[in-house]
């Protein structure tokens, strides 16, 4: 009789115990799959919300802009770049933006803010904050003297739709520019940080305020067709940008004015066939670089999940230890007889291991079925949550309890169970090797 | 002398998976107070079944058992437990002591269940352990005792609650003849001392010799009473 067949019959000798063991493994797998899928869903939504509301998938600026955010960090003559990047197969849309701090005031009230000059029609292809219009309308490409402000700022300066506000910007060359603009729309971006800061004008208006005119911009924002190939596209964009390098000279800046080139700056030069060129003139940042806080949040959350997984499986392993020891102790006599008639210890161990795996695998099947069903239910019928928690308020997407199944959510719990299946019979195996046939046969 | 146990037309049929087996057929007899009676028969003749039915741990298919004129069929499970506790004592073939309790505690166990207070319990247990000659083994666990000693503890446990009737199911079967003889002598002694009724099932000639009344049973029927 083949050993695997014996093992199979053995595990059904004590149906109640086997059933409970399977229940333990199945429950763990089911609940962990659901748990990880929900965490996945949350993370996915947080990123989506942030990326789609304002950040976009990839941003291109002059190196250092992300940190300094100053008007000195412009990029020039970007139409060509925009066209080339737009032609990449994975890119859905590209838009240019001008960013600058500003002070807006209405009657007696004023508020500092971040003014963003956008290309309205292109922006709609990259981000979806135009959907956040609560009153009025979104900007049109040809608009000049109009502005969109967020509801929080509107409240602060007591401005309403169609009010005429004054905006003041310290331009790129240091001069203070002011202009009167009419409020065309009021936005709610879902993110308190953005809501407290953002005002939107057209690129043309912003160009005039900042002194950038039509040539210079602060950043290019790029939307991809999907999150896949983020790194690949980033590299492709870097390749395109290698050809554009017109302005670096000015940037070796105010700080190190003396013409002495320090060593660390020298590192920025690389030798090419054509002589010395500047690399790293641009920074091409994907959302993973831009949303550091969220990425760190997710990393930490993942380590918490792994920790939970580990703890649960330690408990399961201990329980299965017990199950196998009990099942061996019950059959001590039987094992004694088998040993006496010449069965090798290794064969008995093999049998016990098969029993262990059979239980774990049935557990995996049952658990996965439960976990997947529950996850799919939550995928198709997500639960709305209303919460003020910061992490849920990254953008206009209102978070839901939504389960997203992926390889990670399936493989992690299953791998854990398989390892459990490996470790669980260990103690029992030790017992088998120690077994003395003569004694075992006499035990009752 | 009134009857402690009256068995009237008791039949017992076991319905296993196969053919129904009739273990007892229309059995009637009675045991009077203070008797020392043995039910004899070969193995499989139904004597253990009969004893179990008298002991109220099994119920007859038909017929009735009266313990002190009370029909056991009319009683609830709880009342039966209460009867076993106060009226009956048991001695089993394989001793069946509770392995985690010492001799003293084993003997004390039934008293505990009866709700006897600490002081009285101690008194009674000391007395019965003295009766069975095991005062010095009071604190030993069953596994530390020989078979004969274990059976003596079982006797002590049975007698401690001062039952009206002690049912002993082949008490000597697992013992050698010397120990067996000693045990029978002990039980006879107790029978005298406490006026307890003993009912054995056995096929040990030594027991039959000692018994004052013998009920022979074969294939579930009483064949002889003397």
């Amino acid at each position, binding site marked *: 009789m083949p050993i695997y067949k014996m093992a199979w019959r053995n595990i059904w000798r004590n149906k109640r115990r086997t059933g409970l063991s399977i229940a*333990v493994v199945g429950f763990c797998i089911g*609940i962990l799959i659901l748990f990880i899928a929900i965490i996945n869903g949350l993370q996915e939504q947080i990123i989506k919300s942030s990326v789609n509301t304002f950040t976009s998938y990839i941003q291109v600026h002059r190196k250092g802009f992300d940190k300094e955010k100053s008007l000195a960090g412009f990029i020039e003559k970007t139409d060509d770049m925009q066209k080339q990047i737009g032609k990449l197969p994975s890119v859905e849309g590209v838009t240019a933006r001008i960013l600058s*701090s500003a002070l807006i005031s209405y009657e007696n009230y004023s*508020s500092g803010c971040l003014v963003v000059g956008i290309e309205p029609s292109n922006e709609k292809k990259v981000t979806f904050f135009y959907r956040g219009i609560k009153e009025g309308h979104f900007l049109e490409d040809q608009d000049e003297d109009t502005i969109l402000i967020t509801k929080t700022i509107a409240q602060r300066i007591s401005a309403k739709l169609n009010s005429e506000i004054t905006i003041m910007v310290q331009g790129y060359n240091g001069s203070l520019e002011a202009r009167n603009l009419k409020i065309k729309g009021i936005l709610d971006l879902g993110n308190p940080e953005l809501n407290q800061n953002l005002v939107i004008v057209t690129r043309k208006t912003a160009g005039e305020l900042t002194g950038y005119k039509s040539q210079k911009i602060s950043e290019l924002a790029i939307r991809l067709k999907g999150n896949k190939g983020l790194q690949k596209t980033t590299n492709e964009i870097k390749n395109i940008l290698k050809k554009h390098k017109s302005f670096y000279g000015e940037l070796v800046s105010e700080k190190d004015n003396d013409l002495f080139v320090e060593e660390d700056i020298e590192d920025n030069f690389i030798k090419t066939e054509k002589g010395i060129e500047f690399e790293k003139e641009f920074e091409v940042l994907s959302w993973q670089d831009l949303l550091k806080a969220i990425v*760190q949040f997710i990393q930490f959350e993942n380590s918490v999940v792994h920790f939970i997984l580990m703890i649960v499986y330690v408990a399961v392993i201990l329980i299965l230890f017990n199950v196998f020891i009990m099942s061996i102790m019950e059959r001590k006599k039987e094992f004694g007889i088998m040993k006496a008639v010449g069965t090798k210890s290794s064969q008995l161990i093999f049998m016990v291991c098969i029993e262990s795996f059979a239980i774990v695998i049935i557990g995996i099947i049952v658990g996965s079925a439960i976990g997947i069903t529950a996850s799919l239910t939550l995928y198709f019928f997500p639960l709305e949550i209303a919460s*003020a*928690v910061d992490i849920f308020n990254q953008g206009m997407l209102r978070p839901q309890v939504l389960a997203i199944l992926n390889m990670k959510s399936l493989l992690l719990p299953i791998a854990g169970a398989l390892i459990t299946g490996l470790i669980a019979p260990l103690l029992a195996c030790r017992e088998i090797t120690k077994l003395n046939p003569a004694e075992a046969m006499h035990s009752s | 002398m009134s009857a402690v146990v009256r068995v009237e037309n008791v039949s017992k049929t076991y319905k296993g998976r196969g053919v129904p087996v009739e273990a007892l057929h229309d059995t009637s007899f009675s045991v009077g107070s203070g008797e020392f009676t043995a039910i004899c028969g070969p193995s499989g003749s139904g004597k253990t079944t009969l004893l179990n039915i008298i002991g109220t741990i099994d119920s007859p298919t038909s017929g009735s058992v009266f313990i002190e004129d009370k029909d056991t069929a009319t009683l609830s499970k709880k009342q039966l437990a209460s009867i076993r506790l106060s009226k009956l004592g048991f001695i089993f073939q394989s001793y069946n002591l509770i392995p985690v309790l010492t001799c003293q505690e084993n003997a004390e166990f039934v008293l505990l269940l009866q709700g006897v207070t*600490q002081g009285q319990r101690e008194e009674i247990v000391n007395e019965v352990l003295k009766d069975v000659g095991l005062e010095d083994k009071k604190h030993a666990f069953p596994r530390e005792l020989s078979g004969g000693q274990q059976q003596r503890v079982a006797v002590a446990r049975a007698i401690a609650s001062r039952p009206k009737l002690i049912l002993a199911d082949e008490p000597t079967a697992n013992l050698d003849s010397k120990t067996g003889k000693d045990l029978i002598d002990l039980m006879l002694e107790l029978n005298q001392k406490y006026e307890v009724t003993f009912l054995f099932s056995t096929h040990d000639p030594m027991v039959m010799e000692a018994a004052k009344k013998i009920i022979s049973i074969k294939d579930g029927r009483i064949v002889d009473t003397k």
Partner: protein
Amino acid sequence: MSTPSSLPQLSKKLTLRQFQELPTDLKIDYVCSGVELEHNFIDKYKIIVMLGRPRTCMVGVLAYALGYSYVGNVYAPIILFGALLSFLWSFSANLHNTYTDFKEDAYNLPGRLYLVARLGYRNLYRSLIVCNILKIIIAAFMNLPCLIFAVLVQPLVHQYSFPPLRLKGRPIIGVWVFSLAVVSPFVLGVLSQQTSDPLFSTESIAMMLFLTVWFMAKGFFKNVPDYYGDKAANLTTSATIFSSWKSASIFTLACTVVAYLALIPIAIFNLVPLKVLISLIWLIPVVINCLKLIEVNDGAKGNYCLKIDMLISVGFIITLLLLTKFNILNIVVTVFSLFILFGSDWFGIDSRRNQDTSGGSNLGDEMIIAKIAWRNLWRNRRRTLITLCVMSFSVAFMIYMVSLATGYHKGIIANSVKAGTSHIQIHKETFHSVLKSDLFLEWNSKMEEKMRSYNEVKAYSLRIKSLGLASYTNKAQNITLWGVNPKTEPTISVFHNEVKNKGPLVEGSYLKETDYLEGYLDNNPHVFHLPGVLIGKKMAEHFDIRIGSSMVVTLQSAGGEIKQNLFQVRGIFQTLIPTYDARTVIIHHKMAQKMLSYSSSQFSEVAIVVNDYSDMKPLAEKLKSDFSSSFEILTWDQIHPNLVDFIRVDNVFIVFFVVTLFVVTSIGIVITLLMSVFERVHEFGVMLAIGMKESNLKSLILAESLWLSIVSCICGSILISPVLYMGQTQGIDVSYMLEGASLWAISLDPTIYTEFSLFATLGCFALVICVTLIVSLYPAKKATKMEIVQAMNFV
């Protein structure tokens, strides 16, 4: 061992058996004479518990939970006291009943007579007194309204069976008093609120009326099974005023249905949420049960219906409770109630249970059962050890998680308070959300005096807040400007702390008293003194500015003019909130007043730190009544709803995790116990054969699991204590997560400390023990279901 059946010497102590063989009349005389039967110490308390009938007391506790669900702001200790008081409320009523109706009960419930005999009539009376004193003390611990209520209503409740009124004898009013058993706990629940809102809302009054009607119907029901008994004794009850059992029970059915349906109008008037009507699903078993009651026409069977009705009532009130407010506390109350309800049979702590045993119960000796259980546990050492491992591991983990959560959440609050939020902020009107500079407070000496008079206030400081723009070279940044008083600000926030004190200041120094002055100080013509400013690290990086450099701050004054001033950077601070570091600029309040054209008594904010977090809400209430209504008084949780929500979400995760681990562990326990039960089936058979009762056997198995859980609680605590100690002293450093920390609600100190909470840990223990006992019911049931003969032949 013969018993004197005639002429007993009543003054003599009788043994149990002697007592049992007395005729009932003599038994009563014996008990009344005050002589106790022999009993041991533990029995005495157990008997008191049995006579108090805990399972009937759970309806009261649930009603209490329902009561406090109607009001907010109830603190945990008060809830605990309240629950205890509600429990004792019914408990002492039951004791009273036993005491007064003891003679009637002697015939109906002989088991109870026996219990009273063992306890002693005088001891019963004493325990009654103790119970009542205890209740008053507990009520005094809660609050004044509760105390008054308890003192006033309690005597009325006791009049149910006590002379002189003995309201039991008056059918309708008696039933009403009976209904106080649930209504009073409900009222207590409503009274245990802390706020000064009107005591009773319309909603709670509606619920109170409903409960009255509902429990009065229960009172009618309760009297039906005693119909024949009472009729024979010529007692007038709500049942015996009817001519037959049938009409009495039909009347009960009608009352019950009407009582339940009374919920519908309440819901229609919007006094309870509509979803509460779901609980009317219980009407189906209720009606079936009532119909059965009409049919049985027999006291004993009627009592069985009564028992079912009580179960249904508990189910109903639990549904009502959870539908009214679904929170962790109410779930805990529910689980606990169910545990007592079903557990009281298993542990034999209900005195009515013994009505069918003529001779009374054998309590056995718990100590011996515990001893046997303990020894049984160690028969298979390895298995027990592994099981203990699993359980200790879960216990340890649970304690750790709870301590971590406690410390973490407290840290979130403490850090956020220290980072400048403070516990309470007072502003003018809606200043907090709009930060408009024309919304300022006029601070005068009267207000200052008032502020000093509050004991709760640890410190307070006045601030000015405004929106503006900071610029340096050609860079600009919109900012939130804080004008602070360098003298008082350090008492409420941490911006004066140097880096070595884990303060947020990473470079430079804090503002000085003179940091508002401008010009050549001390007639020193060489140094032009600029007012000082503190900025965040993010802004410093953005501006690429250093200590000593000067930057421009632009503001709009209250009058609407744009004002600019030059400031010198004194210090750079770093918190874990990126937006805060990028946008907060701190200057001297006098400078801020100057720029905003405020007078020296005009401020935008009063920031208050209280002595203890629990003082926060009451103080806010006081401030609201003491200060003008044009002020907005915000507490920490109103200023940071995001953090409050974060803590809530975090709690959900922790509960999820703990529950998961517990389900796993429970299955582990079931496996072990089942195996150990099946190993010993033969032994159990023997035990049953020699007269052990099934209930004793159950107790034995439950005792084994009780031991397991107690030992694992101890082991788990010992295991986790070094880790907890480390967590409490060193903490867990998460500073590597610089940017993400704020999303985990960490604002200042990137170290998470655990905090041991005795209250929570004891709760964990209770949960572990309850769960273990509940799961071991299954093996216990398996063990007792077996036929003795089969069991004895089982190998």
